[in-house]
């Protein structure tokens, strides 16, 4: 056997070309009933003349092509996927079952509400469950992802201040914040003001206090923060902002760390977004879809996007569009409802007890894994106890061997695992941000730790194994510089 037994499969050569390369003139997969009404051809002035170069293939070609592509992809069902900040936990199969019910899947978004009571009830119950989890009064389920949730939250913030005749200019964000935070701040018309982290990896409260004044519309914070650390002075932080008349926004990417343990609302946050594709394990589809519901405290409720689901005295559900102070619409329809149905399933499968266990075991896994690899890859902030994820660093290894975090990651691929996030957050050198999630077993964590330790050993003894890695994948390291230079973005 020539293969060294890497659990990751070398899935074919990836040299079969695109689906267009399979095209043969006149082949077809499509079928439709014969037209049973008179033709009504498009007038020549409006008509397309040159056909698009789409593939002409048979159904069997399609099936083999995309089956092959799928097999060249790593997913949670293939193995552990410990990307920090991404919360790649097991996606329950039951969520797929329920989302596929025709009563959800085949529903037009603009049907009269007399014909959509079931889905409206799902949305209403989910909204209220999310409020219970986060300590908020009401929520919008429209935003299709976290970044859109941020934008929603910032526009709510804006509407709130403007309504009070006190438009403000600046929004503070920690230097370790996720890139969507500053980008959203800018797009919402605010200036992003960074606040630095202290040596513990937490917001420097002193520095924060100096930044705060009447021009500050609010603060955006992830807690636990993007380093996986709980902001211990959270009351002081939210208090500082509130005193200055600002609002505090909770980036829910790490909500999974505190489920059932504490609530953003109780920490003083006014606005919260939730990433259902993280906290509630809705499948992320290789980049999306997600869903980014936004919950708010009572005083912000009037500004929530339209429409919102309301429940009448008679128990009937309706879509309320008439909300004069609403910021408007964040999505063409009602958001990623198919994903929200899956989130509903997750939330109610777990219930109060189950959600609490989620955060407990996520934290246990992170701390256990950190301890297993700490000798080779120490924590970047050893003073603070990580919550559901941790940032380790390959700096010592780099110092002694010259090998970089990316090389370690690629070697880990050859050893059978998806590696952690590397080089994020930017504030840590040779960062390796690891989020095992609660659905990885002790057995798997130990195997992953062993892979990381093996990579470290190899870095010393066989550094070429790291530099040349990966060798067990359909392609090896790709030339990203060339991709950006000699742009080839289509056939």
């Amino acid at each position: 056997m020539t293969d060294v037994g890497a659990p990751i499969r070398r899935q074919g050569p990836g040299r079969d070309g695109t689906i267009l390369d399979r095209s043969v003139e006149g082949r077809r997969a499509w079928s439709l009933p014969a037209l049973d009404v008179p033709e009504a051809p498009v007038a020549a002035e409006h008509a397309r003349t040159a056909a698009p170069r789409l593939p002409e293939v048979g159904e069997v070609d399609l099936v083999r092509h995309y089956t092959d592509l799928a097999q060249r992809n790593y997913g949670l069902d293939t193995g552990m996927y410990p990307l920090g900040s991404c919360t790649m936990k097991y996606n329950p199969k039951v969520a797929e079952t329920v989302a596929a019910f025709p009563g959800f899947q085949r529903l037009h978004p603009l049907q009269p509400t007399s014909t959509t009571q079931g889905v409206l009830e799902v949305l209403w119950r989910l909204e209220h469950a999310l409020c219970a989890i986060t300590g908020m009064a009401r929520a919008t389920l429209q935003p299709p992802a976290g970044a859109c949730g941020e934008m929603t939250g910032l526009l709510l913030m804006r509407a709130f201040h403007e309504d009070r005749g006190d438009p403000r200019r600046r929004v503070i964000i920690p230097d370790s914040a996720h890139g969507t935070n500053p980008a959203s701040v800018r797009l919402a018309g605010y200036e992003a003001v960074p606040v630095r982290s202290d040596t513990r990896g937490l917001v420097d409260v002193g520095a924060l206090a100096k930044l705060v004044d009447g021009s500050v519309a609010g603060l955006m914070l992830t807690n636990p923060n993007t380093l996986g650390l709980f902001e211990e002075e959270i009351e002081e932080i939210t208090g500082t902002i509130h005193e200055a008349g600002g609002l505090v926004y909770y980036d829910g990417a790490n909500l999974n760390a505190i489920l059932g343990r504490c609530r953003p609302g109780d920490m003083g946050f006014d606005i919260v977004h939730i990433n259902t594709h993280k906290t509630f394990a809705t499948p992320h589809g290789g980049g999306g879809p997600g869903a980014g519901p936004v919950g708010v405290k009572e005083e912000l409720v009037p500004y929530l996007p339209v429409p919102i689901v309301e429940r009448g005295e008679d128990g009937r559900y309706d879509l309320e569009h008439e909300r004069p102070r609403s910021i408007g619409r964040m999505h063409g329809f009602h958001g990623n409802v198919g994903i929200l149905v899956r989130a509903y399933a997750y939330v109610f499968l777990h219930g109060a007890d189950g959600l609490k266990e989620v955060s407990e075991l996520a934290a246990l896994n992170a701390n256990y894994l950190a301890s297993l690899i700490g000798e080779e890859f120490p924590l970047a902030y050893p003073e603070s106890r990580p919550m559901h994820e941790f940032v380790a660093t390959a700096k010592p290894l780099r110092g002694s061997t010259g090998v970089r975090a990316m090389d370690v990651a690629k070697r880990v691929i050859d050893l059978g695992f998806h590696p952690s996030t590397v080089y994020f957050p930017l504030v840590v050198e040779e960062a390796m941000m690891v989020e095992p999630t609660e659905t990885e077993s002790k057995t798997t964590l130990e195997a992953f730790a062993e892979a990381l330790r093996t990579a470290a050993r190899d870095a010393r003894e066989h550094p070429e194994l790291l530099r040349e890695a990966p060798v067990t994948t359909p392609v090896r390291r790709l030339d990203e510089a060339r991709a950006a230079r000699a742009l080839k973005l289509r056939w």
Partner: protein
Amino acid sequence: MKFAPHTEAEVAEMLDAIGLSSLDDLFDRIPPAVRLDGPLDLPAGASELEIVEDLRALSGRNRSADELVCFAGGGAYDHYVPSVVWALAARSEFSTAYTPYQPELSQGVLQSLFEFQSMICELTALEVSNASLYDGATALVEAVNMARAGDRGRVLVSEGVDARLLETLRTYGKGSGYEPEVFPAEGGRGGAPGVGSDVAAVIVQHPNVLGILEPASDLFAAAREGGAKAIQVFDPLSVGVLAPPGELGADIAVAEGQSLGNHLAFGGPYLGLIAARAGDVRRLPGRIVGETVDVDGEPGYVLTLQAREQHIRREKANSNICTNQTLMAIAATIYLGWLGPEGLAEVGRQSAAKASYAAQRLTELPGVSLLHRGAPFFKEFALRLPRPAAEAIERLTERGYLAGIPFPSAGEDVLLVAVTERRTREQIDGLAEAMGEVFS
């Protein structure tokens, strides 16, 4: 039910290994004052069976397009989704992956997206596209963000643009500092945008919200003469028969991509399409996949031009999008592969013919007429009814038809009817008959 595989013994061993005595200790950094005393205000966990039965019951309280013959449109359409699409797109290697940060482990998603981008370029006759946006409405917002630069800040919107798109634009415009300005149409189409030197973009939907074919090239010519970007909102299943945005002179084309193999799903997950001219590639929002080679010279795919994006450019990024609608884009790719050029044209041809037939049949009913007689339309058309549209729709659901959607801005008696290739003559005749009964 829980998915964490831990046994009690393992939990104890792990706690031991990290020197803690209880799970509570893991949370000792949370200040006591903000800790939750009791349990969350939620029911206790349930078994899979209970959740399935709960949601089955709830789904049963909706009347889906399997039950009601669907003539509703307005951006979401009941085109046929062939079985092969989700048999493949739902494969768990695609569906349970994250964003392809490690390209060697993600060639399946990356190559599919490269194919998607290529197909969207082909559909639009434009040069560059991306790996999808959230939906049609937010895609339009992104297009406007691309177009606005320097002194050019104003955004002119044709009256023929869908109200939901306009509302969305208005919402996001509050942040970016513009208020979309609507220029009126004449007889349901056209109009005259005044494209001054402060105008960033002229937005035309073609076919427009009423299904009517716009004099798009004229409008786009006006836009470009005035130095503004011409943005077309298009219907991806129209361009097999209708001239594509690039040929009409659009600089940026955006669309709701749902009809490309994605389910109605009460409004989402859908996907936003965007395409533009090559010169604008660095202003394109979202992820872009590029082809390159590996160290052995073998072709492969990576995320590229990332310097545009929020995770690198941060507050200077043109867009904040991170998670997009990749899986829907994969489904769209498979669907377009199923159609090919001929199938694409056939869907357009059949939809148009059936819409035309439906318009003829329905306007035979007394009191029912086209809102804009004589205006050429594609697969959607607006009718004036002898009754309020909402009421007619309601009554027709009792007869098994979802007759369309109300179009209140033109009057409460206006009904917008969409007809896809999926509708049969029998269903159209049935709708006409049922409508006749309801109005009699």
